[in-house]
C-alpha cells in the first residue's frame, strides 16, 4: 500500500492538493456567475492533474504522468473551453432563479463535508487508517460527490448542471489517484475520453433545448409529469 509508507512531504502535498480541490468546489457552490464556476472547475482539474503527477512520482507509478497530462489537457483545458463556448453562445451568464442563496448552500455544503468525514472515518477505522491521507482522500471524494449532487439539485441552468456532473466525477478522480493509484491505466484513460463525449453530447443537447424548448433552465422542463 502506497499510503502506509509515505514520505511526510508527499503526504503533505497530497493533503494540500486534495483540500485545495475541495475548497474550489466551495468556490463553485458560493458563486452565481457561470464563468466563475467554470474557472473554479478548471482550477480544480489542474489540482487533480498535479495530484496525479505527485502520486506518480512518490508512488512509482510512471503511467500516472500520462494520466496527469491527459487530465490537464482534457479536463483542465479542452472541457472548460468547450463549455466556455457554449456559455458564450447561449449568452447566459448567471443563475437567474436561485432556489437557495449561495451563502446557505455553502453552509449546506459544510454539513455534507461533515457527513462525508463521519462516513470515511468509519470506513477507514476498519483498516486503521484514520489518521492517514487515505481518510482525507475518502472524505474529499465523498464530499465532492455530495457537493456535486447539491449543485445539481439547487442549480437550474443547463450549464451549471453539466458542471455539477463534472464535479461529481472530479471527486472520483481525485479519490482514485490517492486510494487506488494502481487502478488499471486503461480505465482511467477511457473515462477521460468518455467525459469528452459526454460534454459533446451536452453541447448538442443544450443547442436543441434552446431551439425546441426555448430555454436552458430545467425549471422550464415540466411538460412531462405523472
Amino acid at each position, binding site marked *: *500500500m*502506497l499510503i502506509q509508507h509515505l514520505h511526510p512531504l508527499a503526504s503533505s502535498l497530497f493533503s494540500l492538493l486534495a483540500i485545495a480541490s475541495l475548497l474550489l468546489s466551495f468556490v463553485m457552490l458560493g458563486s452565481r456567475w457561470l464563468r466563475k464556476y467554470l474557472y473554479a472547475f478548471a482550477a480544480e482539474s489542474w489540482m487533480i492533474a498535479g495530484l496525479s503527477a505527485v502520486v506518480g512520482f512518490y508512488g512509482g507509478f510512471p503511467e500516472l504522468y500520462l494520466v496527469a497530462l491527459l487530465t490537464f489537457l482534457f479536463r483542465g483545458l479542452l472541457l472548460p473551453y468547450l463549455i466556455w463556448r457554449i456559455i458564450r453562445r447561449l449568452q447566459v451568464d448567471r443563475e437567474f432563479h436561485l432556489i437557495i442563496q449561495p451563502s446557505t448552500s455553502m453552509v449546506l455544503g459544510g454539513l455534507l463535508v461533515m457527513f462525508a468525514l463521519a*462516513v470515511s472515518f*468509519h*470506513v477507514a477505522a*476498519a*483498516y486503521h487508517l484514520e489518521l492517514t491521507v487515505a481518510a482525507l482522500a475518502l472524505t474529499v*471524494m465523498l464530499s465532492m*460527490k455530495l457537493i*456535486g*449532487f447539491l449543485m*445539481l439539485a439547487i442549480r437550474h441552468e*443547463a450549464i451549471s*448542471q453539466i458542471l*455539477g*456532473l463534472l464535479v*461529481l*466525477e472530479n*471527486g*472520483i478522480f481525485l*479519490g*482514485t489517484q490517492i*486510494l*487506488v*493509484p*494502481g*487502478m*488499471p491505466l*486503461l*480505465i482511467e484513460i*477511457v*473515462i477521460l475520453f*468518455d467525459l469528452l*463525449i*459526454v460534454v459533446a*453530447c*451536452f453541447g*448538442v*443537447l443544450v443547442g*436543441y*433545448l434552446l431551439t*425546441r*424548448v*426555448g430555454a436552458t433552465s*430545467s425549471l422550464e*422542463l415540466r*411538460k*412531462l409529469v*405523472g
Partner: protein
Amino acid sequence: MIGALTYVMVAAPVAAIVGCLVLRSARLSEALNLVASAVAFCCALPLPFLVGDRESLFWSDYILVDRTTAWVVMCTAIVYFLASVYAVGYMRLLNEDARLFQFYALFAGFGATTLAGPLMNSVGIYWIAIELTTLVSTFLVAFEREAESMEAAWKYIMVVSAGISLALLGTVLFYWGGSFVLGPTYNMTWSTLAAAAPQINPVLLTLAFLLVLVGYGTKVGLAPMHAWLPDAHSEGPAPVSVMLSGALLNTAMVGIFRFLAIVESAGPSLVPQLALVLLGAFSLLVGALFIVRQRGVKRLMAYSSIEHMGVVALGFGFGGPLGIAGAFYHMLNHSLNKSLMFFGAGNMMRAYGTKRIGQIRGVAEYFPTTGGLWLAGAVAITGAPPFGLFSSELTIMRAGLQPAFAWAVYVMAALLIVIFVGFMNHFRVMYYGSPADPPIARRLSAWCVGPMWAALIAVLVLGLWWPSGVWNYLIAIAHSGVGAPR
C-alpha cells in the same frame, strides 16, 4: 465456437453502423440494421446451449461468457431483433426519411452496446459500456426533436449520468478493498473480486455495494431513482422504447446481480439483500400508483417496466435458487412481453395520432387482430396465467416465503393485484369505449404486427411449458452466484 459467435454477434451491429453512415440511404440502412439484428439473434440464441459449466474468456480476458452472460445477451438479442423488424414498419410512418440513416446507425449502436455490456469481464469496463449505452440512446430518445423529446433526453442523460457516477464510486471502493488483498495493481474482474471479497472489510464491502446498487439501480429504473424512465420511454420512437425497456434495463440489472454475488461470496449478509428487497417493493408501489392514474399510453407501459424491474430486484433480494432463477426467467418474459406492449402502444399511437389513453377508443372494433394481441399482452404483463410472467412471478414469491422477507411477498401480491385492476381498467376503456374520433389510419403493416405475434407466442409457450433444461440452467446460475435463503 463460443468466441466466434460472440465476436460476430457484436461485430454485426458495428458493421451496420459503419454501413449506415457510409451509404446514407434510408432503405439500405433499414435493411442493414435488420440483417445485423438477425445475425446477432442467430449468434446469441445458441450461446446458452453452448456455454456449459465453465467461464469462457476471450480477447485477452476482456470478454467473459458464462451462463449469466449468455442468458442476458440472449434476451437482448431477441428484443433487438424484434425491435428492428418493427422499426422497419414504424419508422416509415414518421416521414423522416432524410434522417433515417442516422436513426439506424444509432439504433445499431444501441444494439451493439447493450449486447456488449454484459460480456465485459472487467468491472471498470462494464461501467464504461453502460455509460456508452446512455450516450447512444440519449440521441435516440431525442430523435423526434419535439420539445417533449428534448426534455426527456435531457432528464435521461442528467439523471442517469449522475446516478451512474455513484456506481463508479462504488466500483473504485471495491477496487480499493481488493487492493488490501491483491496488492495495488491487479486486474479487476468479477471473479478476482469475488475471490478477494471474503478478506475485504464488511463495512467497506457494504458501502461499496450500496453505492453500486443506487448507481446501476438508476439505470435499471428502480424507484426512487426512476425519474428519467417514464419520460425517456414515452418520448422516444416506439422501437427505442422497446430497446430501452426490454434490453437496456436487463443489461444494467446483470451488473447488480454480479456485485451481489461478489458481496455474498464473502458470506451471507442481510443489508444488501434487504436493500434490494426495499427498492424492489418501493418500485412496485410507485409503479402501481402511477399505473392506476395514468393518462399516457406509453407512460403506462413505462411504469409497468419500473414495476417489473422491481419484481426482478425482489427476486435477487430474496435470493436462493428459486429467487435467482425466477428473476432471470422474469427478465426473459418481461423482455418479450414488454416488447409486445410497446409494439401495440406504438401501433395505436400511430393509428389514432395520440399518446393519450383518453383519446384511444374502440380498439376492439377497429383493430380486432392487433387489438386482440395487445390485450392478450396486457393480460400477460399483469402476471395473469397462463403466460410466462405468471410462472416467474409465482416462483419469485415462493422464494420470498422465508421469515425475513415474508412481508415483502404480501406487499408484492397486494400491489400486483392493484396493478392488474388498474391496467385492465385502462384497456377496458380503450377497447370498449365508443370512439370520439375514429382512427386516422386503419391499416397496419405486417412489419408492425408480425413482431407482436412472435412475442405473444413466445410468452404463451414460456407460460405453459417451462422446460426442465431451462430450469436447470437457471438453477446453475443461482448456484454459481448468490447465497442461500435465510
